[in-house]
């Protein structure tokens, strides 16, 4: 039997081209996602700054919670939202160990100066960490700084000169005490001054541990571990890179999510598309199978032939898809690095496991699909088979119907689950919902297509001979129509869901900002941010009534057994006057009850819903640096998506944020003050990079935050939508090319070329319109609960996206029909 399969593949490769293309793209998508997953699991960065430090103690970058009891215990982790830090005091405990020569806390914070590139501020002790440092001059005392030579040259100062520097803790003029050979722009401050300037006194990013002569690294690490106990993790070798770049934990989680959640959906879609294409290809060979049955092939022999063909085509196509897949992963990864979501220095890990999985998944999918598709024609009596080759069966089987209804029900259940998800998880659940509905559409396809053909057939019959022919064709060939509609539904549903979900978020956030930000002026920064005290200085500017500094950071909270991140807005000043610049839409409680001691928090209503808290109850939070707090809820407000899901006084969060700069100062003008005058006065505040805008400036900052999320969703939409589009085009071409005999017959009976093309165009329109309507319906059903979960409202459908998807689907259907049709017509009728 092998001979038969080999002969088919070798001598009629064209009939396997469709299957080959579907398998190739499937393998590419699976390889790409698998490579991302593998990178997420294995990613590391080589230490650069800590390269000469044998042992580094750093805070655990992950929050951990344990859910369940006994055997069901499960640990859930999530990376902290900002920079995890540990107590500087630990350095003394470590230094007390016998093998330790020195334990140096490493503190870094962004420093700005009016005419200099951004600097990194550090404590003087940390200059020992970069082993290559040679210093001219002396260690900085209070009010002094040591600069790197390049920065000093740029500033035009030498030892003994003065330079004005702004740090999160405040701005002042420093005397240059010395110069270092440092490569990066750096400012070293006296150890005590650095702690205050950093904005997080008493906390360090890491502690570098140096060994006494003759003490090996493992013994040093052991002693350090003993000293820090559970307060820090001890890192050596490449692990030091993770202490250097703690965002690696976030990056890993994101890569794992892309590779795992999205990759899972993508793999399922790939399997789905491959199975659809293989069964279409097998179905198109009904005549051949019927002939084989008539001349004495048993059903088993037919199935084995089809399976063998799959075995021949799948590995080749899969292998051909590996390189494009790796290229896709590389592009994606590089983009993530460029966008700062993955730290520089991390490498894409290309391994054989994703490739084997990709090829194997394609092989298994096409084997299974081949077996299933060959089952019916192989089992049928040959006379039935000979008859069915011409006239297709309309009624789908009982099992198929039951499974299809089950998939529909599953989609609805998942959709209701999705209603309880928050932003980050919503996307993957949404894709799961879409996928369930897709399976349902595929299973119930012929029925759905038949209905679509009947409904759309009514107007078609008015469209002259080609329209009437198209109406008859679509109705009589519901199965063929279904295999063309399904991938269009796939494109529409995937792209529609992902893009509209993002659109809904952006739209709602903007609307909330428009309603919630009532400040007259927004003071922003072109650099790292505004130092503490800017708000107070702004408040003293003539014409200013109230000035509130806002600091953006993040926090983790626990909801239904998992850790989720939320945006935190730290607000300065008197909380009673907050509403003059921000109106978050308080539903219950009062923002005036916010206290600076960090024991109170205001919560967005959606977050309050998922965490089941109300005014008066307490909420456990992990702040940006990993500090766990349990503040009391004093207010619940509505506009969290635009303004920030949690609101705490600045003083309570600044020390735990990545940098203690305010991102903006919101200003309310005094009654009667001229806005332009106030704006000019504010612009004269002596802060590097200061900008003054109207309230639209607030939005610009938020948009930047949403951008990465939007981009990620767009890439997913492009990858999945693109894959589905290829599948759709592929299927359409396959179905058109299969109609050679029919087209020849039409030509012989006097149908003109134009009429044939017209007929096919009408059919393509039926395919596109029913696919769009179905896909749109699926996207809408998916979006409703997700929109309710993430924004509390109904989905917003950006008109541009609708037009793009509809136009794309129409153009795709028409082109994928017209091109092969022209090819058919250019051949002489036979």
């Amino acid at each position, binding site marked *: 039997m092998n001979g038969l399969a080999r*002969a088919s593949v070798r001598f009629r490769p064209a009939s396997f081209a469709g299957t080959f293309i579907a398998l190739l793209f499937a393998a590419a998508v699976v390889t790409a996602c698998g490579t991302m997953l593998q990178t997420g699991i294995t990613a590391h960065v080589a230490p650069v700054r800590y390269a000469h430090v044998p042992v580094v103690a750093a805070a655990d970058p992950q929050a951990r919670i344990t859910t369940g009891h006994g055997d069901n215990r499960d640990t859930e982790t999530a990376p902290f939202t900002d920079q995890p830090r540990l107590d500087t005091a630990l350095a003394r405990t470590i230094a007390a160990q016998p093998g330790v020569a020195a334990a140096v806390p490493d503190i870094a914070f962004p420093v700005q100066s009016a005419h200099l590139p951004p600097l990194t501020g550090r404590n003087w002790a940390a200059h020992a960490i970069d082993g290559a440092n040679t210093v001219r001059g002396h260690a900085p005392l209070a009010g002094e700084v040591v600069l790197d030579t390049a920065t000093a040259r740029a500033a035009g100062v030498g030892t003994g000169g003065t330079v004005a520097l702004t740090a999160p803790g405040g701005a002042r003029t420093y005397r240059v005490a010395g110069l270092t050979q440092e490569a990066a722009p750096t400012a070293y401050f006296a150890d005590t001054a650095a702690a205050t300037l950093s904005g997080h006194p008493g906390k360090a990013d890491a502690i570098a541990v140096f060994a006494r002569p003759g003490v090996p690294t493992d013994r040093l690490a052991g002693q350090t571990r003993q000293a820090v106990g559970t307060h820090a993790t001890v890192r050596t070798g490449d692990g030091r890179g993770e202490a250097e770049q703690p965002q690696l934990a976030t990056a890993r989680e994101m890569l794992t999510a892309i590779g795992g959640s999205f990759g899972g959906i993508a793999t399922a879609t790939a399997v789905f598309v491959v199975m659809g294409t293989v069964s279409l290809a097998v179905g198109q060979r009904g005549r051949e199978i019927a*002939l084989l*049955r008539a*001349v*004495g092939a*048993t059903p088993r022999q037919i199935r084995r032939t089809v399976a063998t063909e799959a075995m021949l085509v799948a590995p080749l196509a899969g292998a051909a898809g590996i390189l494009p897949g790796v290229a896709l992963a590389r592009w994606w990864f590089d983009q993530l690095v460029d966008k700062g979501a993955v730290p520089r220095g991390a490498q894409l890990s290309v391994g054989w496991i994703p490739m084997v999985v990709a090829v194997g998944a394609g092989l298994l999918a096409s084997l299974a699909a081949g077996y299933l598709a060959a089952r019916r024609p192989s*089992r049928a009596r040959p006379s039935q088979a000979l008859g069915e080759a011409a006239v297709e069966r309309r009624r789908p089987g009982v099992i198929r119907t039951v499974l299809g209804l089950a998939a529909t029900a599953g989609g609805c259940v998942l959709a209701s689950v999705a209603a309880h998800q928050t932003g980050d998880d919503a996307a993957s659940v949404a894709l799961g919902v879409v996928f369930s509905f897709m399976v349902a559409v595929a299973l119930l396809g012929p029925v759905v297509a038949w209905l679509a053909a009947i409904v759309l057939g009514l107007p078609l019959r008015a469209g002259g001979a080609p329209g009437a022919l198209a109406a008859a064709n679509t109705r009589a060939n519901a199965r063929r129509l279904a295999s063309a509609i399904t991938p269009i539904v796939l494109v529409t549903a995937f792209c529609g869901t992902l893009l509209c979900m993002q659109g809904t978020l952006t739209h709602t956030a903007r609307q909330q900002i428009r309603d919630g930000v009532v400040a007259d002026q927004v003071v922003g920064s072109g650099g790292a941010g505004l130092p503490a005290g800017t708000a107070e200085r702004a408040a003293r500017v003539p014409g200013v009534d109230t000035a509130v500094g806002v600091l953006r950071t993040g926090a983790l909270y626990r909801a239904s057994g998992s850790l989720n991140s939320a945006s935190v807005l730290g607000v300065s000043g008197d909380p009673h006057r907050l509403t003059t610049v921000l109106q978050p839409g308080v539903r219950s409680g009062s923002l005036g009850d916010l206290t600076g001691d960090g024991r109170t928090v205001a919560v967005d209503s959606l977050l309050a819903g998922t965490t089941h808290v109300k005014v008066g109850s307490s909420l456990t939070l992990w702040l940006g640096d990993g500090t766990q707090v349990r503040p009391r809820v004093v207010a619940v407000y509505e506009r969290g998506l635009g303004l920030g899901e949690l609101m705490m006084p600045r003083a309570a969060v600044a020390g735990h944020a990545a940098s203690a700069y305010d991102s903006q100062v919101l200003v309310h003008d005094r009654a009667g003050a001229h806005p332009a005058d106030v704006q000019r006065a504010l612009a004269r505040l002596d802060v590097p990079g200061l900008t003054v805008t109207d309230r639209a400036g607030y939005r610009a900052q938020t948009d930047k935050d949403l951008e990465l999320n939007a981009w990620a969703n767009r890439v997913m939409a492009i990858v999945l939508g693109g894959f589905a589009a290829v599948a759709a085009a592929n299927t359409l071409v396959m179905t058109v090319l299969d109609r050679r005999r029919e087209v020849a017959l039409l030509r012989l009976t006097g149908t003109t070329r134009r009429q044939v093309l017209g007929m096919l165009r009408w059919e393509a329109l039926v395919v596109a319109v029913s696919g769009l309507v179905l896909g749109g319906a699926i996207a809408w059903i998916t979006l409703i609960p997700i929109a309710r979960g993430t924004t509390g409202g109904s989905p917003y459908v950006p008109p541009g996206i609708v037009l793009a998807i509809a136009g794309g689907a129409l153009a795709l259907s028409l082109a994928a029909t017209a091109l092969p049709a022209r090819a058919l017509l250019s051949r002489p009728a036979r």
Partner: protein
Amino acid sequence: MASRRSTKSTARTDTDRPSPYAVELRGVRRTYGRGDAAVHALRGVDLALPRRSFTAVMGPSGSGKSTFLQCAAGLDRPTAGQVVLGGRDITGLSENHLTKLRRSRIGFVFQSFNLLPSLTVQQNVLLPQRLAGVRPDRRRAAELLGRVGLDGHGRRRPGQLSGGQQQRVAIARALITDPEVIFADEPTGALDTGTAREVLGLLRHAVDALGATVVMVTHDPVAASYADRVLFLADGELAGELADPEPTAVADRMVALTASTAGPGRLGAAA
């Protein structure tokens, strides 16, 4: 051929003696659908076709010709009655047994699409042997291709052959297993007159020189005239027969049959 058949123990009938008939139909009925929508394609057909005979089956459209052929060849199952092939009742056989039976003891020539386009002519001829797991007899395939006038065409593909040549390959394939019966369903339906004559001549030759039994469904009186006997079907029943048929006699009978079944108003519909 007789020796081959006697070695098959499964070919025995209750009389334990080779039947004189290649095919026997006993009260065969075939109904499609149920209730009011039921179509009675065959309403009880009894007949016996002797070995080494060439029988043509004719009838107006819808007379049950194709159903008759499919039931007789084991491609379809009768609703009632028996089909006996080479003395063996095949009515109760499982689908797998029927398949094996078709593979070894029945040959087919269809109106069109007889050959797998991916296989060479020689591979197409050897297909039944290959499906049966028998070692392909290339010498015999070459010999049969020679007999049907396609010497040296064994390595070509069906797409490179004319319609008539393709039908000849189908005949060679039908003959490769020395079958009990060759069933031909409008084998000349898609051919021009000259080519059709050659194909019919080959079928005649298979009966006369190779001892085959041929049952051919056709609507062409000229084609039917190559047979030893013509059976007429109308409305699912036998409507007479004609031995040593002449084209004109066959045509007259067809016109009469068509007129009596379709009524004067639909005369033109029968062709």
